[in-house]
């Protein structure tokens, strides 16, 4: 199960979509700037999903092959884990 921790919000900063924590401290070095595809996946992650659903969503929305979609999702999930954005 891939689900974002509570307390992260999307914000427009300098014409970029960034993820920031809504808690009492903002760590500028832990901000991720999402592109359009990242924003698309963010909705899934907010309500809870898994890697298979993310891959399927990408295949349904974008012109991409499954291998690329899967490796990209894995890399994205790894990044979110590294930044501590996902629930255990």
């Amino acid at each position, binding site marked *: 199960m891939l689900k974002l921790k509570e307390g992260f919000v999307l914000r427009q900063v*300098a014409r*970029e979509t960034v993820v920031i924590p809504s808690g009492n401290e*903002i*760590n500028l*070095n832990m901000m991720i700037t999402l*592109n359009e*595809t*990242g924003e698309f996946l963010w909705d899934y992650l907010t309500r809870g999903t898994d890697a298979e659903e993310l891959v399927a969503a990408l295949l349904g929305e974008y012109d*991409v092959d499954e291998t690329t*979609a899967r490796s990209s999702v894995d890399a994205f999930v790894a990044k979110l884990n590294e930044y501590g954005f996902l629930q255990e």
Partner: protein
Amino acid sequence: MDFYKNKEMQLEQVLPLIVEQLALGKTVRFYPRGVSMLPLLRENIDSVVLASVPPALKKYDLPLYRRDDGQFILHRIVRVEGDTYTCMGDNQHIPEPGVRRDQMVALVTGFYRGDRYHRVTEPGYAIYCRVHCAVRSLRHLWRRGKNWLRRHLA
């Protein structure tokens, strides 16, 4: 296929966000760049926690301020002169006088040395500030002397 950008945002770009968050009473953590605050802050290793600027700033405070050319600076106040401040990095010996209150963006309330957090209210930090500032001239003389010797005796 990427979903995020690795590019780092400049302070200039996130300034509105910083100002907004500080006004809400929140704190902002970031990694300062450069060597001017050595030995306290090591680039890419140590980070600072910023809060909103209090009504009065005092000697040894560590504010983030913005020069008139737009550059952001994190240097220590070494002298308060009425409405202006003289600031200087811990690793520098040339002061920057005339920093105005309206240039102040935020104030450091704590810092991470590696993973360990320190508040600026800790006695050890107060001692560091006073001792470091007191021996700054001696340190500068020592460094110049060493360089002179190296040049003339090598």
